[in-house]
């Protein structure tokens, strides 16, 4: 106990086909470490939605994951346009995604609500014109 693993990913902003690479990698790591399927699923669904957001909205970004036996902590940081009204963005169905993103199966305004649903802690720091940092925690059970 007390040991933790840290992972770092750079998510490119211009390649939608690769969105999900980091989430898939984290999933395989958690499975290999023996985390419960329930915990793995919560982490990867939240992370995958957040990774898609980095690609759709922020022109890419960076993901840091810290895995300890008790908790998986994730920080996603981008230098995108920022979120003017976080509370509004958290509402189901509210979306600012362009139409081409909808044709790819996302952009229905479910990303942030899904992330909240699957994580135990979620915090967003966002400044318009500067970027957004999202902090997520999922406790292992």
């Amino acid at each position, binding site marked *: 106990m007390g040991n933790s693993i840290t992972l770092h990913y750079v998510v490119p902003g211009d390649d*939608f*086909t690769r*969105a*999900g690479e980091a*989430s*898939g990698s984290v*999933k395989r790591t958690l499975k290999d470490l023996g985390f419960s*399927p329930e915990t793995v*699923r919560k982490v*990867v*669904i939240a992370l*995958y*939605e957040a990774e*898609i957001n980095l690609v759709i909205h922020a022109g890419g970004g960076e993901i840091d994951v810290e895995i300890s036996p008790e908790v998986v902590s994730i920080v996603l940081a981008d230098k995108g346009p920022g979120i003017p009204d976080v509370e509004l963005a958290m509402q189901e169905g509210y979306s600012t995604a362009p139409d081409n993103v909808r044709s*790819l*199966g*996302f952009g*229905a305004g*479910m*990303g942030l*609500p*899904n992330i909240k*649903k699957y994580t135990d802690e979620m915090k967003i720091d966002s400044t318009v014109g500067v970027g957004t940092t999202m902090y997520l925690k999922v406790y292992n059970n």
Partner: protein
Amino acid sequence: MKVYEIKEILDAEIICGEEFLDREVCAACGSDMMSDVLAYVKEQAVLLSGLVNPQVVRTAEMMDMQCIVFVRGKQPDQGIIDLAKDREIVLLSTKETMFASCGMLYEKGLRGGR
């Protein structure tokens, strides 16, 4: 229901994953909206979709889904097939529509999972 039963019921073509046809599927989800799939499906499931892009395979990967059925005869490109092979996900393609495909599987006892 086994994956090979789904193939037979929908008269589907196997695109990849022939070696996994005896996998058990407990539920099904039909959607072109991947966020809905991520929000609602919980059990070992098959995904039916009219959407053909790599994110359909990645969504299935995140959800531990066994099999994807592309409806209305849609065919994935090689990049999608390679991704599915790597993740050991069965890809099927049926000429049936989404509505008909879901109805045919429901009639044979497959349910929605929640």
